[in-house]
């Protein structure tokens, strides 16, 4: 136990400070699973699966594994990956309703489609090659078109706005990638129990894909190759975050008092399955139910028997019994010890060890009375939209609106008596959207500000046509009391070559999500718990400090598209133009006026065959001259010429066919 704790402590410290701490090594591979459920304010439920695999370093442990997926291990070794994150997302995370401040949302809210970033432990000039190989390997592994991130137009290397202290990082997104069960199956194969036992057995495909948000994520850390540091092995963190709507009978919209009756739910109504026990290979297998701080305070406030509560008698308190009930009794209740927030969230823990096939775990959460609350919101609400119309130019606008909570101001940077909030904006733009970065304008509270006042740091690498996307990193320093910030950037719409258009080009082209980052504001849960309980990786993850992130919407830019359905017309008109050009050119080159006259005279003196007569009649008609009597002579010369001409044309045609056909 002591060992475990120290390992976790070590991990925690390592990630916070990046320092090198030598600790005793654990020689055991570890796997743990957890599920966190959280009722959301808009009658939905968040389910967050968390699987965590650890393997000790190869130096001490060797390269044979019992639990850790071999494919990932090989991937890390082959491409020398230091850290990597891959996410498949469908739907949008609703920051306004589902929260944007807590660790789960800032870690697991991802842009739609595929997002991949990785840092490599290779020399600078090999990073791109490693990245390309990695994309192909992942593409095969996860049945997705991640290999499209191989092209240099698809990825970029952010310097500081995406991740602090990261070198050799590559970042790419595929906003249009459709996510489905074919991506989930290989992801599940990385788990030791797959979806046959344990919490992953809950993943009934129709249920989880029916949800409003679906994001499967794979996060990998290894420091195998860091020679200076004492290696701690690899950590593979796999999470699946879904937002589900519990099925309720009757669509009772509002109760008479105005507050919404929340739907009651259970695991079997959410997923259509029950958990029949833990995955036997896992070290820990827990289910948590989280109540958000605002909900807790709301429940307490509405309860008549509100007491000045202390931590110890939480379970026995009347307010929770009055508001909701759970079918199973929690092993323990973990309370957040939060400094500055009024109320703190609660975690109810259920251990799956106590359940088996004969007694499956089917947690039921039943509301007893209507309640409304709101989630913890990020300090600024970010939105991004397009401006302008037409096929020529437009503008991207990113708007940040304050939610009007001053508590965050306390935690943000204070210097010289002024409260300043730092916001990093990270935006990648494909090359065919030609952004003019000098047109960046910043409006604070509907007033145009000069960039020098607001922008602390910028890093712009303009796009290069057909080579690299444009990358913009801006660090803003905003006064804490700002209400609205709007950044606008103008762009021209470019033209693509005909074979660069993707299928369904008329849909338009995507601008990937921008990332708004609040590096000054860290989110974490300070869980107040007994020391022995720190064995669950999900809890340690929740306690890790991470900056608040916000991914904006994907934008769709309509570009001019050629009429693909008319290649026939194009071919026809091109051929006509060619024929006219070459015809008249050859005609002009070939014609000799004097010789024609002489020929005509000769012809008048010679008789010709029936074909010759016909030809001369025809030509006479065409030339608008009365038909002269056919000269009685053989047209051997004429027919030779005719044959020669035919042969020449046929030869040209054959050559053309041979070279271009």
């Amino acid at each position, binding site marked *: 136990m002591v060992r475990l704790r120290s390992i976790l402590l070590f991990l925690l410290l390592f990630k916070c400070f990046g320092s090198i701490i030598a600790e005793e090594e654990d020689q055991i591979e570890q796997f743990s699973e957890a599920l966190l459920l959280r009722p959301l304010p*808009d009658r939905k439920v968040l389910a967050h699966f968390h699987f965590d695999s650890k393997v000790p370093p190869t130096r001490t442990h060797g390269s044979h594994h019992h639990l850790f997926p071999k494919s990932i291990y090989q991937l890390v070794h082959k491409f020398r990956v230091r850290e990597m994150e891959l996410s498949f997302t*469908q*739907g*949008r995370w*609703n920051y306004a309703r589902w929260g944007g401040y807590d660790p789960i949302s800032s870690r697991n809210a991802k842009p*739609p*489609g595929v997002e991949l970033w990785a840092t490599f432990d290779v020399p600078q000039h090999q990073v791109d090659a490693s990245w390309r190989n990695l994309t192909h390997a992942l593409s095969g592994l996860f049945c997705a078109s991640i290999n499209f991130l191989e092209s240099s137009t698809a990825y970029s290397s952010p310097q500081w706005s995406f991740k602090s202290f990261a070198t050799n990082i590559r970042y790419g997104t595929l*906003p249009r990638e459709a996510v489905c069960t074919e991506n989930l199956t290989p992801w599940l194969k990385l788990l030791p129990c797959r979806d046959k036992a344990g919490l992953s057995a809950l993943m009934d495909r129709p249920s989880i894909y*029916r*949800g*409003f948000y*679906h994001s499967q994520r794979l996060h990998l850390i290894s420091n195998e190759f860091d020679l200076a540091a004492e290696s701690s092995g690899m950590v593979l963190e796999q999470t699946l975050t879904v937002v589900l709507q519990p099925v309720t009978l009757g*669509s009772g*919209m*509002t109760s008479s008092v105005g507050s919404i009756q929340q739907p009651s739910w259970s695991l079997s109504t959410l997923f259509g399955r029950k958990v029949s026990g833990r995955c036997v290979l896992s070290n820990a297998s827990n289910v948590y139910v989280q109540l958000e701080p605002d909900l807790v305070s709301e429940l307490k406030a509405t309860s008549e028997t509100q007491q000045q509560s202390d931590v110890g008698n939480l379970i026995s308190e009347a307010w929770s019994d009055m508001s909701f009930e759970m079918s199973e009794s929690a092993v323990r209740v973990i309370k957040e010890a939060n400094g500055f927030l009024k109320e703190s969230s609660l975690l109810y823990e259920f251990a799956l060890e106590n359940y088996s096939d004969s007694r499956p775990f089917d947690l039921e959460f039943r509301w007893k009375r209507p309640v409304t609350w709101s989630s913890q919101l990020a300090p600024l609400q970010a*939105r991004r*939209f*397009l*401006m*302008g*119309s*037409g*096929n020529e130019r437009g503008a991207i*606008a990113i708007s940040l*609106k304050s939610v009007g909570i001053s508590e965050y101001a306390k935690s943000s940077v204070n210097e010289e008596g002024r409260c300043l909030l730092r916001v990093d904006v990270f935006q990648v733009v494909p090359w065919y959207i030609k952004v003019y970065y000098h047109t960046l304008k910043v*409006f604070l*509270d*509907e*007033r*145009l500000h000069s960039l020098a006042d607001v922008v602390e740091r910028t890093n712009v690498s303009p796009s290069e046509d057909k080579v690299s996307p444009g990358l913009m990193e801006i660090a803003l320093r905003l006064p804490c009391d700002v209400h609205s910030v*709007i950044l*606008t950037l103008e762009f021209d719409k470019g033209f693509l070559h005909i074979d660069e258009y993707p299928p*369904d*080009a*008329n*849909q*338009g082209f*995507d601008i990937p999500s921008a990332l708004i980052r609040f590096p000054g504001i860290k989110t974490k849960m300070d869980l107040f718990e007994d020391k022995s309980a720190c064995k669950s990786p999900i809890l340690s993850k929740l306690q890790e400090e991470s900056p608040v992130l916000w991914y904006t*919407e*994907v*934008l*769709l*830019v*309509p570009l001019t*598209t050629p009429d693909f*359905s008319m290649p026939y017309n194009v071919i026809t008109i091109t051929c006509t133009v060619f024929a006219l050009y070459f015809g008249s050119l050859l005609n002009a080159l070939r014609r000799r*006026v004097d010789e024609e006259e002489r020929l005509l005279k000769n012809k008048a003196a010679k008789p010709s065959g029936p074909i010759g007569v016909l030809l001369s009649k025809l030509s006479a008609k*065409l*030339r*608008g*001259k009365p038909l002269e009597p056919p000269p009685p002579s053989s047209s051997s010369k004429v027919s030779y010429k005719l044959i020669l001409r035919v042969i020449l044309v046929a030869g040209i045609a054959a050559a053309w066919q041979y070279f271009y056909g």
Partner: protein
Amino acid sequence: METMADAEPAKAKPRPIIRLGLFLISHSFIVSVACCAAGIFALLLLPILAKNTYISENALMPGSASPMLSNDDVSRARMFVNKVVSFDFKTDSSSIGIQDLVAQHITDLGGEVNFHRFLPQVNKFNPLHFFSSPDQGIAQENYTCSSYGINTVGFIRAPRGDGKEAIVLVTPYNSVKTSMGEALSLGIAYSIFSLLTRVTWLAKDIIWLAADSQHGEYAAVAAWLREYHTPSFDGSGRSLFESNASPTTGRKRPNDFLRAGTMAAALVIKVTDGSEKAERDVLNLYAEASNGQMPNLDLINVVNYLAVNGQRLRVKVEKLGSLLDSWWLRSLAELFHKLGTVARSLNPQWNFGISVAEYIEGSATLASSLYNQALGVPTGPHGVFRDYQVDSITMEISAKRVANYKNRPNELLLQGGRLVEGVIRSVNNLLEKFHQSFFLYLLTSPNKFVSVGVYMIPFALLVAPLPMVAASLFTDSTRRISGMGTKVASSPASSDIPAISFRSWRWLHAAKTVFIVHFWGAVVTLLPHFLSLVQDSSPLTNLLSWIILSAFTLLILQAILGSSFSLLHMNRTQGMEWTLLKSVTIAAACTGLCIMSVINFATAELGALMLVPMCLMTRPLMLDAKAKTLKSFIRAACNVVLIFLVFPPVAYYLWKGALVGLENARVGDFWNWVESLWTWNSATYIYMCMVHLPCWVLCVHTLLYPC
């Protein structure tokens, strides 16, 4: 040509194509008459040549899913309609109550909502910003609080969509006095909205714009779209709103402007009271946007298909009522019908016959379609969307049941709701934006259309004689002049060439005249802008002052720039200047028509119908008077009549008279019509002032040419 060919037999023969051109030019009279006749005939033939519409984009799949709109939704919508109808506008003096009601219902359904306040923007003609994109202009006038319009906008975010695209539903209603029809259209949108918050198949976001039409439907929708696409972030205009926004209810109003991606399509829903005698409800479709732009034909097809096959509605597009019972059209229809039957009796495969009624209906619809496109004024709020490249259509359900709504309330809501649901579902299926089907077409009935490939034939035939006649006149006059020159100088062939080349620049004088008149046309175009600066004047005075000012400027321009008169005097002896003038006029008219056909085809088509005969016919009256034959007399009479008819005000009054009867037409109407043209930024106005009017003046000039 013949003489030249005879005179110089030694020279090489010109190429056949050149010879063909020369032949056409030399026979330009017959050719132009034949072409014009063929052009008009082809125009009359268009209803026969119309093809049946078909759904081009396979992804639309209209009607493949059974409608999900249930009676539950409809009864909820009915309650909503009753609330709207019984809403007491008197008690809520702030006139924001009904928006609150709508917003409350949207939030109850789980949608997001925001209010959009706007000032009604007065359409002002600004000649410098004519073709520019819609800009954000902030009205400077001081408006009182009550003159705000407040749009209520509801959003449904597609559960699994990525939010890149959106479908817009528009229901204009007057927030001050909501009529039964408007309430019903709100009810239809509400029923759809309540359905769509629950469905799982939604891939695009839904925007419901309940447009406050107390300042006009178009203005409300335009203001919202302007804010959506080109917002201004400077607070200068907005402080006005904030200061005056005093929420009477005390509730926090969501004032953040919400957005939802690129718009895929927009549907405007209206309900009007139909006639009692119609056996079925009628769905009127309006599609024309500004400058003759049309939405993709697929959108019309889907609506038509679903309305006819799904909801048993009778779909109508606008038609010109006065044509329906005109005798000449009927006799023409009978003629075509007879020809068709004869053709079919000869060969059963020749199946181009068309029944009389069908032909008349088709031509009336075609004429209306042509007229509306040519006018360049949108036929409803859908027109705004086209300015932002969004396909949109107005669906006006003209129900006989609105009157007896009390008896069978659900039926109309269910029918309309299911129709809209089907259309939304089809558009939702689309992966790409509308691009498969036609954008350039004329409708002859809701399910028949004439595509661009067919309807450009009449125009091409009408315009084709113009360059030919111009060339023929030019060669004619140069030959005569050179003939005179040779006679006078009696010089040998060696010195003939420089003389001709000198004289052949003579057309520059004519070109100068034409240029001056066209320049004057530009001045006339700008005059109304200055006239409109003078406040409070009646249309009649405006019109008169416009005409007088125009005539005055013409005189001034001629006095300053027009040395053409002196030239005329100088060359009067030759007497052939008018042919050159006519030739250049015709060339200018041809250029103008061709340019206009790119901008607005229908305008060019109708313009060519008027302009081409006039330009081809003109001939100095003096010449005809000198000739004193019956032929010349008829020609002179024709010329005078044509000139009279083609003068824009006269043409307008005649058209108006044909539509509503001459007794209803007032003199000032023309000014109002012109005003509407420029406030809607119609290119027809520019065409009229810069092509049609100068050509008319030049033709008058030619007519009165002293010979």
